[in-house]
């Protein structure tokens, strides 16, 4: 087991290096530079700016210099926010985004998981159709629509909850978490329903039932493990996607998170910021994918043998 994790962590190094390399050169090929603005920039000024950011050096040399800085944990100064380093910006944005992502994931797993499992227990009955139809609406409802709808209902009509902010007023974390979590809840519901149905028809469940175990014990002891497998495989990438995808929610609710930086960095051609956030996110993605693989193996003993091989 530990050997498996160690080897996967080792594999992560070339993965992240590849991501950095590809991203570094991709952003430089993209048209438009960080200093382009609506008003033409005086050439001398542009040259001075490029010198301040090392952009006047040959590209490959810049790449090596970047790797050198990165090895020391330095992500460099931001182009868009000149007085700030990328490290500082990520540190400023991360807490809100991580918290939002965590709550959203909890919403997804609690609501979606319960709905999916309930639906799978009595397929093709009202207990199946109602939660699944709600899940479907959740999937059709993009965050840019659900967010404003929730705000209009709870924030403006009922005046129960604040319309924006994060940790500034009591209750302001609720709507963003629900908005971001809803789409994932719908996924989790569908995946867990399918997974459960798959498992419930398996022989070992029939055996368990035949042995006279109460139904709820059959479900919790035996079926859930296998039935939630697809959900677990989905969660790793989902959490990473949640972080990157929180942009819309952060914008709607004015949340000071990383998602806004991540997306705007691309629009601004803020080279260091794009790279910094990408390095950071790719590390997270690799880690979460690993975590979900480990969790999947833990839930499914038959896979454990594979740890030896990897």
């Amino acid at each position: 087991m530990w050997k498996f994790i160690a080897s996967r962590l080792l594999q992560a190094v070339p993965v992240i290096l590849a991501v950095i390399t590809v991203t570094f050169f991709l952003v430089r090929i993209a048209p438009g530079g960080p200093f382009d603005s609506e008003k033409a920039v005086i050439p001398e000024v542009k040259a001075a700016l490029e010198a301040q950011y090392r952009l006047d050096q040959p590209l490959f040399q810049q790449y090596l210099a970047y790797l050198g800085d990165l090895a020391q944990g330095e992500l460099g100064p931001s182009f868009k926010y000149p007085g700030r380093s990328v490290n500082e910006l990520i540190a400023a944005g991360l807490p809100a985004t991580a918290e939002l992502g965590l709550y959203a994931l909890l919403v997804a797993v609690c609501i979606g998981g319960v709905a999916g499992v309930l639906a799978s227990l009595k397929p093709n009955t009202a207990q199946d159709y109602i939660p699944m139809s709600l899940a479907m609406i959740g999937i059709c409802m993009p965050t840019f629509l659900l967010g404003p709808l929730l705000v209009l209902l709870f924030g403006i009509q009922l005046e129960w909850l604040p319309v924006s902010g994060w940790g500034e007023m009591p209750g302001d974390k609720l709507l963003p978490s629900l908005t971001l979590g809803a789409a994932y809840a719908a996924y989790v519901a569908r995946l867990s329903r399918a997974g459960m149905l798959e498992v419930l028809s398996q022989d070992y469940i029939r055996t368990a039932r035949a042995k006279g175990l109460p139904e709820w014990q059959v479900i919790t002891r035996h079926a859930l493990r296998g039935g939630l497998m697809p959900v677990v495989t989905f969660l790793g990438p989902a959490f990473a996607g949640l972080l990157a995808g929180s942009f819309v929610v952060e914008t709607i609710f004015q949340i000071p998170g990383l998602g806004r930086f991540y997306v705007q960095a691309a629009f601004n051609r803020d080279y260091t910021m794009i790279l910094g956030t990408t390095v950071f996110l790719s590390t997270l993605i690799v880690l979460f994918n690993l975590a979900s693989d480990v969790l999947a193996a833990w839930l499914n003993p038959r896979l454990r043998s594979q740890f030896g091989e990897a």
Partner: protein
Amino acid sequence: MLPFIYKFFLVPLTLLILVGCSAGESNVSQGNREGILHFGNGSEPQGLDPHVVTGVPESKLIDAMYEGLTRKNPWTLEPEPGAAASWSFSEDRRVITFQLQPEGRWSNGDPVTAHDFVWSWRRALNPAMGNLYSYMLYPVQNAEAYATGKLQDPEQLGVKALDDYTLEVTLSEPTPYFLQLLDHYSTFAVPRQVIEQFGEATDRFTRWTRPGNIITNGPFRLTEWKLNRRIEVEKNPYYWDADMVQLNGVVFYPTENLVSEERMFRVNQLHYTNDVPLDKLPAYRAMPDSPFVEAPYLGTYFYLINTARPPLDDVRVRQALSLAVDRAKLARSVMHDLVTPAWSITPPGTLGYEPPKLFDYEPERARALLAEAGYPGGKGWPGFELIYNTSESHRKIAVALQQMWKDVLGIEVSLSNQEWKVYLDSVSEMNFDVARRGWVGDYVDPNNFLDLYLSDGGNNNTGFADPDYDQMILERAPQAQDREERFRIFFEAETRLMEEMPIIPIYTYASKHLKHPSVKGLPSNLMDFVNFKYIRLEPVEVQEFEVP
């Protein structure tokens, strides 16, 4: 699993809902009580160094915290005494002598002296600084040469401190709008001591603008800067005109999403919004005691034409395109009567200057011109592509124009929206047929619009080049004896420009905001300029803005 969920999730959620229901005091009523203005500021500012930043949100913050030699009166837009108490011009109007405020102080109590301005202008113009707005100081003698590295010695700049409180500025030629430039932030004084304490004068990356480090000379001073959350300033007790300042502080919010911003306003979280969603205009206008304020804005929305590419190299085609646009209808239906049709590049009423109007919506003449150019009824039309940067309002205009051209001229035009930086690249490389463009004046003078189309103008981007035009703008206008003659020359130049039609003017911008009825002393003006010094709060309770 269940206890875990219960403990970490359900309990806080339930608490949040319960607490959330007992609605707290809104920002607006709390602000009214404490004299704090809650101000929607559009986006997170790049920074607070006046020689580094470039945007509108930054300018609002910097105007609140710093002060140039002059400061615009928000009602008249005329320059008023700022850091300078008075000024006088020499006979040939090339030398201006400023007497600084005897009580002018930085927010730590140190005096603001003429030396601060000399040092700051040298910094603003230093090529190593990479100041994108250094050209605002170009009228100063030798400024352009120094800023472009042709002259190394900053001593030769036309700015000198005669004593601690007397500043002498020498211009390379008389510049009627120079006083207006002095309240642009690139001409502001920055605190030398603090900057040097944190690094080199020209280093962009230092921490001198952080709360606790920064000192400023304006009506307010920085107290808190929470990234992407809020920036708070408080009244600066050392400000020379502190008696005039009514607010105890301002909180700036980076309200990026204008739909969210409008909702914040509706539940009394903001006193003033940066913008208003266009489609909400009819509803807000219909409200009794509407918080909606609108005003013409010193800017023009237009389409750039690449005059090198056929069929647009034919002036008749360009004119036909322009004549076929029903601007009044566009302004009415797509823009909800917010904007006014534009017939030329300079906005009307710029310091009393009225631009020429050479044409109107003339579908018959447009068809005739197109036929003359060889495309009767659109026959044989090769088509062209119209690019615009990704934005809802640009899309609306483009879709409407596409159809007008089809209906009136019978021609097909394809649309292409481009991501912002791609669009900028296409425009500056002239890699387009027709491109959406807007220009907002840095100062109130026709020159700011007309010098765009100089043959070698960096913002020309159309291929339009006319030596006579250049001569009128560069030589004849600056030497004009009075404003009337100067404007006559501008009118002549602009007439020539619009005959050649390298651009299709569409409308004159308008600013739009939501303003809580408690807010006084914040008038609308042509520059959308906010002078925080004069704003006061006279509490009016509005429970909620019910949008019909």
